[in-house]
């Protein structure tokens, strides 16, 4: 009888104490002392661990920048690897504070998932990877091909739309993780591997003979990749949004990881506002006055992070393209810090 009532009381307590995640993510993160960041399970250039377990990539840098802005320490991040299937549930349930996992910004994800996109880290598009031996030069020659995709991504739907729109037949094989998809493509189960073009370059590196595969020229969709946070916490939403904007503005101002301290002493009004010498913009966000310099010291500006992870300083060698600054031919544009 005593055992039964104890179990009942515990169950009651559990049912009653589950509270809705109120608008206090910043407070929770500060109390925990760590930022919980949802990343991929290993996508070179965006979020992948090296052989010592240290995470690196463009998405990883965004999370480290947030941690630096809050704690002045870019290592105070806990990375949670998530598959495409369970990334949104992890964010909805509160397991992670921010999802920085090369996720495409779409209307249905912005609304029905109870989450908000805070900006665009990388403007991407969907493409196709084929073996050079098939002698295919364009995606329009892929009628009745077998295509491997990763399940639960926008890729599947774009693929269906593209083939239907061009009156082509195809066979789709959908796998749970990117690794299995690539393995099936390599073993010859399918002729084509389709994903975002940046992922194609990254996964091609994992193949046994990267030079035998070619990315077809067609880009069949818009895939703006960016971080996601939950609905209902405007302060946290602003923080994550402006951390990314700070990185882009830093590149516009010419502030790099090396010259931060110098630039902090500058007399230019927009630099004084950004560095907190003038006004208290950082505190308005809920961060400290030196939030901007903390970010750039930790991960550099957007251009530096891009080069280091996916650009000319990395194995992927992807050109800036659309991701160049707006005044240099691309479309990366951050609102002014004032």
């Amino acid at each position: 009888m005593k055992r039964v009532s104890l179990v009942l009381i515990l169950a009651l307590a559990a049912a009653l104490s589950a509270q809705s995640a109120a608008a206090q993510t910043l407070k929770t993160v500060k109390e925990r002392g760590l930022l919980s960041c949802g990343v991929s399970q290993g996508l070179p250039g965006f979020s992948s661990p090296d052989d010592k377990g240290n995470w690196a990539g463009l998405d990883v840098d965004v999370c480290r920048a947030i941690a630096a802005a809050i704690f002045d320490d870019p290592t105070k991040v806990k990375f949670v690897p998530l598959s495409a299937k369970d990334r949104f549930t992890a964010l909805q349930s509160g397991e992670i504070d921010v999802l920085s996992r090369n996720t495409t910004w779409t209307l249905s994800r912005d609304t029905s998932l109870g989450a908000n996109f805070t900006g665009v880290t990388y403007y991407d598009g969907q493409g196709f990877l084929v073996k050079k031996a098939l002698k295919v030069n364009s995606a329009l020659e892929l009628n009745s091909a077998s295509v491997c995709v990763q399940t639960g991504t926008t890729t599947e739907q774009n693929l269906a739309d593209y083939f239907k729109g061009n009156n082509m037949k195809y066979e789709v094989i959908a796998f749970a993780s990117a690794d299995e998809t690539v393995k099936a493509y390599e073993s010859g189960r399918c002729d084509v591997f389709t994903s975002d073009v940046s992922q194609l370059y990254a996964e091609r590196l994992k193949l046994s003979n990267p030079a035998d595969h070619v990315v077809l020229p067609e880009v069949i969709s818009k895939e703006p990749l960016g971080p996601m946070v939950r609905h209902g916490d405007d302060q946290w939403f602003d923080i994550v949004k402006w951390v990314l904007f700070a990185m882009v503005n830093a590149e516009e101002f010419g502030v790099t990881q090396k010259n931060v301290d110098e630039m902090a002493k500058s007399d230019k009004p927009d630099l004084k506002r950004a560095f907190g010498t003038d006004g208290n913009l950082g505190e308005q966000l809920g961060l400290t006055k030196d939030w901007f310099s903390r970010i750039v010291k930790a991960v550099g500006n957007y251009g530096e992070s891009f080069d280091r992870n996916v650009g000319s300083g990395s194995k992927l060698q992807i050109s800036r393209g659309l991701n160049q600054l707006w005044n240099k031919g691309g479309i990366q544009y951050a609102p002014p810090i004032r």
Partner: protein
Amino acid sequence: MSIEPRSRPPQFALRLKRALGGRAGWGGFALQVAFVVVLAWIGYEIAANARANLETQHITSGFGFLKNTAGFDVSQTLIPYSGSDSYTRVFLVGLLNTLLVAVIGIFFATIIGFVVALGRLSPNWLLSRVAGAYVEGVRNLPPLFQILFWYLAVLAALPGPRQSISLFGGIFLNNRGLIVPTPIAEAGFWPFVIAALVAVVTSFLLRAHARRQLFQKGRLITIWPYVVGLLVGLPLLSVVVFGAPFTLEWPVLKGFNFAGGSRVIPEFVALLVALSTYTAAFIAEIVRAGILSVHTGQMEAGLSLGLTRGSVLRQIVIPQAMRVILPPLTNQYLNLTKNSSLAVAIGYPDLVSVFAGTTLSQTGQAIEIIGITMGVYLLLSLVTSAVMSFYGWRISRSLGP
């Protein structure tokens, strides 16, 4: 002094008290009611809490998403399906794929399991050791590894479409699957089917008649010439009278893959082989336990009557063993059905893969989708248990009082 007989206490109230509360009486009944009320209230609290949380975060809830267009294609569909169908149709496609692999898997697993069990019990030393090694090896490895092994082994062994192995010029085997010609129904299709059905039913009636004649009057009638004549002759007659039942659509290599014909995808074959061999190892042990539970005197008595070992097993030992075999066997069937959800690892589009995987990521409605999937598996398990219980009841009835 005379002894007054006590008046009988009211029977109805006593029996009601015993029925409702057991030996604890009315107190026991009150406890049960309180327990059910508390349980229901906890369930309600959890549901209300979940609903409140979903609303705060503006996560869509409800089942309206089932009507939306799916927008993606599936590699194996038993019913016609295209990307512009609704999520409900996706659910049906996934469910049918799961049922297909579960039913065929159960069939093969049972056969392999029985064979291996008999092999392990055989007096032949080599056979019993090989069967034992199979059981020990297979049941100790996790099913996911076995599924991946069979998939990679199957894929690695097969050539690409342009170097397909072709049988009889119309059947092709490559790493996209086994491609066979599709039969297309012609005018003579339904008469052919009806003729075949009539032939089969008549054969069963003939068999029942022959058995009755044998058991009641002692007359032995050979019916197999009539059965063969019926099964061959009636359909042949319908072909002659009504025309060919179907024509074949031959597969032709066009570009990347074969056009025309039907395909059995390698994912299905790998999953089927892996699940069948895995579950068969467990079924073999259950069958072996069941056979060992029957008194050895039965086998000795049967052999002393002059029956062969096979006959004794088939007619005497195994029917008695079935009572012990059936409950754990039902367990293994349920395990096979649930293990089929590992299909997502190799890209086989079963219920979990297309519904609780792709649809969940696209709509984000985790609670509803997981709830439906769990409900479906629960329903499948309950139906399987019910069927097996009925079968067990039939057997125990026929074994006599």
